[in-house]
């Protein structure tokens, strides 16, 4: 292959290193109104009255919006397929607020300062209501956080259960009763911030035809169009969503978070409008990773083979449930797609509380699965007296295995059968064992203040949502044998524009520079569900491959007509006829435009897959625990991934290298404490600590040879898989170092100091 598997320079690299104005807010709109949101200062209250007269009287204020301005209409902010699998439980503005940060009102003004001042002048009378900050207690609180009238899709309103799932294969109780060994553990994962460094930014204006243009930092332009049309009650045809360059998303921009607000301002005033979340708003009022409390029971037979996996999930979905069902589904799907067990069962509840709203965050429920699963596997290995790597190798799914959970538990409905066509998890584990010096470090005797430990964990993910995610592509040819590639797929910083260009270039026998990528704009590019669920390379990439093949077929047909031959073949960038004559791609296009057999050479294709091949990863963590302070420093991470054929090795490495510190943050440094009123306490990057360059351990990142027969050129996904295994690898390493089993993240030094066992 000429360009697949090569470190092709990014198609957008030059503009980014120059700081070109490519992001949403890098354009200035004339007469723009600045929009600010009044967020609820209380966690649960009924709004008795609102007086906006002083705000409206302030010089420079153009409009103030409260719930009185909108008809009660419930929707979901989740940028997902339609009909959405989750509950419809949120309004653009409501007369009840349900968490500190909920929207109370919004203001449009001539400057940001005036808009902020206007917020201070809005007088709101709240009747405070009892609050629930504990998902378990929420189910028996005796009062409902959401109304019955108007909402839909909520599993059990009275018990505050937004979503519920259960599935069983075989007979788990019987199998556990018959098992030689049963291990049980309850673990919890915390709220975590996506912390994409570009905040949520949206700009709107009316074009010359009175259509609403939305330029927004989104991962899901087509879902933005659909949902804004619904919320503002205007036709889809009146909306154009432009996705400019995106400054990171990680799932946080799979949400319709403020597009509908600026849209409302522009429709009402006729003027352009702009909103940009501050970092503080990002932290307390945007979206977070769902905390989950997960209990696993694992049964093993006398040969150390799994007999049963029982999984119980309690998910805190926060005040609203946009991703309540599907995040929990992913937790169970991924937990039950790693190891083969004849009996499996899952039972899960996603429960409302008066805390921030759970959204989509890289891994999407899978980190919540693998921290407990891989911790308990480590414990099981110790109890069974077997090497943790060996125990995993014995139990992982193999090529040809059916993964039954995929069929019984889909995206809010029954799923599709999944057969594993590719897995190199054994190669990942074995290569990592060497590169991490596992055997040496494991055997090392520890003394002194600083104790070193090594731990391992494995994980899987998916490649798109089977039967749901659809991507489409359009390719057209130009005179110089360059091609415009128009995709609905959304590069949010991952490099997907480059990867998709590589796929098109490989098919069309041209260098990547000849592929001009445009992504994405609902007026210009075909539909794509968007950049989430690790779908772009696998799903959109397949669409690009098929569109390029269609385009190539048309080049050949035009070539044959121009050469006046019945048969011909493509050799590099020429069509060579059976009569020995040839014509270049460029000449074919020029003639097709201007002189003979006139036609635009182009290709279009859509792609949907009922497969979602899991990429796999093995992560080895070497840590150093300070026994004086209880703090843990990660010294080295070895991360070995099977992502099928790698389209661009350097870019794929970048995905893994970037996923690791996000995972380590969840394990060690990122923490959202709340006070007893539900107010988040650390509202800046100084106190919400994401990894900086100095915190980084040494990274060893490798990919094993692998080929996925259903993927474009053999590719699987790579975006989310690196974030799943580092946390349990670290906590397993802590156990190895000081004998403390961590069951709740983030790791608390106090727990290590209290429980360490210095042999």
């Amino acid at each position, binding site marked *: 292959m000429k360009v697949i598997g090569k470190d092709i320079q990014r198609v957008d690299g*030059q503009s980014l290193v120059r700081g070109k104005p490519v992001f949403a807010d890098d354009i200035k709109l004339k007469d723009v109104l600045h929009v600010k949101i009044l967020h609820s200062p209380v966690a649960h209250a009924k709004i008795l009255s609102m007086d906006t007269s002083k705000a409206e009287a302030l010089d420079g204020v153009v409009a103030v919006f409260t719930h009185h301005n909108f008809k009660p209409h419930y929707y979901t902010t989740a940028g997902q397929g339609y009909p959405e699998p989750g509950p419809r439980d949120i309004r653009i503005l409501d007369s009840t607020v349900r968490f500190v940060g909920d929207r109370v009102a919004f203001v449009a003004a001539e400057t940001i300062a005036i808009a902020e001042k206007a917020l201070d002048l809005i007088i709101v009378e709240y009747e405070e209501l009892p609050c629930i900050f504990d998902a378990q207690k929420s189910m028996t609180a005796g009062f409902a956080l959401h109304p019955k009238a108007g909402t839909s899709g909520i599993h059990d309103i009275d018990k505050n259960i937004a979503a519920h799932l259960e599935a069983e294969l075989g007979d788990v109780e019987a199998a556990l009763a018959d098992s030689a060994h049963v291990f049980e553990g309850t673990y919890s994962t915390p709220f975590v911030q996506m912390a994409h460094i570009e905040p949520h930014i949206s700009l709107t204006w009316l074009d010359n035809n009175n259509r609403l243009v939305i330029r927004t930092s989104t991962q899901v332009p087509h879902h933005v169009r659909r949902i804004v049309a619904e919320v503002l009650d205007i036709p889809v045809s009146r909306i154009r969503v432009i996705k400019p360059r*995106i400054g990171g998303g990680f799932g946080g921009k799979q949400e319709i978070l403020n597009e509908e607000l600026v849209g409302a301002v522009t429709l009402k005033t006729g003027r352009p409008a702009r909103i940009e979340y501050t*970092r503080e708003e990002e932290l307390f009022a945007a979206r977070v990773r769902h905390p989950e409390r997960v209990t696993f029971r694992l049964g093993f037979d006398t040969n150390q083979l799994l007999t049963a996996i029982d999984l119980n999930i309690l998910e805190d979905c926060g005040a609203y449930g946009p991703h309540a069902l599907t995040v929990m589904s992913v937790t169970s799907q991924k937990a039950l797609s790693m190891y083969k067990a004849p009996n499996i069962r899952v039972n899960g509840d996603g429960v409302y509380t008066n805390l921030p709203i759970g959204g989509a965050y890289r891994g999407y429920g899978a980190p919540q699965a693998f921290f407990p699963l891989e911790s308990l596997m480590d414990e099981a290995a110790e109890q069974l007296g077997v090497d943790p790597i060996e125990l995993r190798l014995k139990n992982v799914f193999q090529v040809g295995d059916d993964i039954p959970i995929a069929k019984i538990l889909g995206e809010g409905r029954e799923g599709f059968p999944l057969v594993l066509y590719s897995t190199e998890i054994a190669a990942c584990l074995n290569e990592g064992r060497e590169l991490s010096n596992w055997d040496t470090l494991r055997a090392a005797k520890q003394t002194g203040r600083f104790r070193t430990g090594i731990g391992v964990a494995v994980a899987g993910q998916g490649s798109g949502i089977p039967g749901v995610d659809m991507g489409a592509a359009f390719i057209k040819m130009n005179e110089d044998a360059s091609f415009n590639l128009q995709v609905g797929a959304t590069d949010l910083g991952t490099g997907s524009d480059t990867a998709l260009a590589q796929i098109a270039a490989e098919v069309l026998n041209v260098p990547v520079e000849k592929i001009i990528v445009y992504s994405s704009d609902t007026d210009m590019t075909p539909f794509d569900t968007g950049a989430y669920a690790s779908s772009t390379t696998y799903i959109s990439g397949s669409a690009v491959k098929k569109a390029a093949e269609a385009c190539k077929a048309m080049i050949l047909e035009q070539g044959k007509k121009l050469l006046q031959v019945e048969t011909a073949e493509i050799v590099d960038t020429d069509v060579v006829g059976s009569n020995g004559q040839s014509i270049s791609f460029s000449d074919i296009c020029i003639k097709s435009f201007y002189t003979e057999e006139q036609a635009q050479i182009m290709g279009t294709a859509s792609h949907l897959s009922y497969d979602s091949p899991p990429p796999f990863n093995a992560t080895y963590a070497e840590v150093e625990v300070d026994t004086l302070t209880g703090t843990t420093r990660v010294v080295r991470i070895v991360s070995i991934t099977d992502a099928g054929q790698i389209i661009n090795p350097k870019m794929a490495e970048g995905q893994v290298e970037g996923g690791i510190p996000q995972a380590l943050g969840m394990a060690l440094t990122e923490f959202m404490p709340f006070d007893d009123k539900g107010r988040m306490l650390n509202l800046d990057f100084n106190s919400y600590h994401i990894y*900086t360059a100095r915190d980084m351990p040494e*990274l060893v990142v490798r990919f094993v040879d692998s080929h996925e027969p259903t993927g474009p050129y053999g590719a699987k996904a790579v975006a989310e898989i690196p974030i799943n295994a580092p946390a349990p690898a670290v906590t397993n390493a802590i156990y190895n170092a000081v004998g403390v089993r961590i069951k709740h993240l983030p790791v608390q030094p106090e727990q290590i100091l209290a429980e360490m066992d210095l042999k």
Partner: protein
Amino acid sequence: MLFHSRSDLFQLSLTVNGKSVDREIVTHLRLLDFLRDELLLTGAKEVCGAGECGACTIIMDGQTVNSCLILAVEAHNRNIVTIEGLRDTTELTDLQQSFEHQHAVQCGYCIPGMVLTGEKLLERNSYPTRDEIKYELSGNICRCTGYHKIVDAIEKCSVTDETQIEHR
């Protein structure tokens, strides 16, 4: 200058990317907003607004500073260089090339700040160690890359002979 009285205004003179600029501004205007909104130099980004992330890094009189923490009036009579003015030709600097070659860029939002910080480091220290580079970058937050390839880009640029960059 809507909504401001004369006493709020200041006649600012400074040099930005080699050109002298004279503007009447409101005194409370941050340098970041002056650059982005008045001069349309949008390479510097607002990410935290509190000096924690370095995305708004610019060079003032030869020093990297967070332009969100500086009032525009403090830049009076000063010399400002932004990512747009790093070089007065269309060529990339060696470090910008190195960022590209090493795939140090993912979303790119932090990159102008990273490049400027790297440039100033290499000016002071031609051969920084990886630890020195990480120390220098500790005021610039990136959520995409894990910093690995950004450190690579600076490390591999720490030579004066341009031809060596390709081969390292």
